[in-house]
């Protein structure tokens, strides 16, 4: 009789130990899941920003825009492009891009929730980077007959 009573108590201790280990394990899983989810979301956001920055910079340094003389009439602006030929930038187009509002630039470049800033020689435009995610890309171009660096920043 006494031995049977002792065995029942040992089963309960064993069960409590198993439940404790199980609770610790579930908590560890939940914590890992939360951390991985946050990290992956951050990685995806940065990669999306990076890809968009490359696509937009390609458009700016390779294309004259649409219409090709959009800098003469901003109201007709459809697509922004700064090039008079591949990687050769036009001074008039750069100055026009410098002078348009940031909101118009975001809308025309289809940047969505992102902001932009650019620098080329003494010209600059957009909003100074001030966010959690910032990506800067440098493109090597010809501007005013000289080799210059066109720096384009996309940030959020």
């Amino acid at each position, binding site marked *: 009789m006494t031995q049977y009573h002792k065995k029942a108590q040992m089963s309960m201790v064993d069960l409590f130990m198993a439940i404790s280990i199980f609770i610790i394990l579930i908590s560890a899983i939940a914590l890992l899941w939360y951390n*991985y989810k946050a990290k992956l979301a951050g990685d995806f956001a940065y990669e999306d920003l990076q890809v968009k920055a490359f696509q937009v910079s390609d458009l700016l340094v390779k294309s004259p825009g649409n219409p090709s003389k959009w800098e003469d009439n901003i109201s007709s602006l459809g697509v922004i492009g700064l090039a008079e030929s591949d990687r050769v930038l036009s001074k008039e187009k750069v100055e026009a891009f410098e002078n348009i509002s940031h909101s118009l630039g975001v809308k025309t470049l289809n940047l969505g929730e992102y902001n932009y800033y650019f620098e080329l020689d003494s010209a600059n435009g957009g909003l100074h980077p001030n966010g959690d995610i910032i990506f800067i890309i440098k493109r090597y171009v010809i501007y005013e007959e000289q080799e210059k660096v066109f720096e384009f920043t996309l940030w959020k």
Partner: protein
Amino acid sequence: MRNKRKFLNLHCGNRGIIFTLDTFVAVIVFVLLLGLSSYYIGLSQGLRDVDLPTIRTGSDILALLDHKNILQTMNVDSIEINRDNALPDLYDMKIKADCKDSSGSSSGSIETLEAIPEDKFIGSGKRVFVKDNDNYCIARFFIWTK
């Protein structure tokens, strides 16, 4: 009848720990699965890391050489000097160019002297340019960080 009981010669006697044993086995399986999945997630992350800035820099430098009519000279020394003037110090770059005439026959090729490393990411691309009325050429670049 006397029941014979077999006793394990353990400190705690013959008490069962079935639940805890079961949980330990489950923990080991879980840790193995978690470790394997983390390893493959890390591996796939590395495979996605294409160095886009490097590739874009190579493309830009080749475009500059084309615009300045340096590629058209098909002169290795001239190409190397102008490439080094334009290329940022962070990078090294090899350029190859092959030309063909209007009949499709080869009309010359050049290659700069750098050796492409085997232990780094190599960005590459190509550009078509016209040498003269009768010849078109394809220039290829291979770029890497020093």
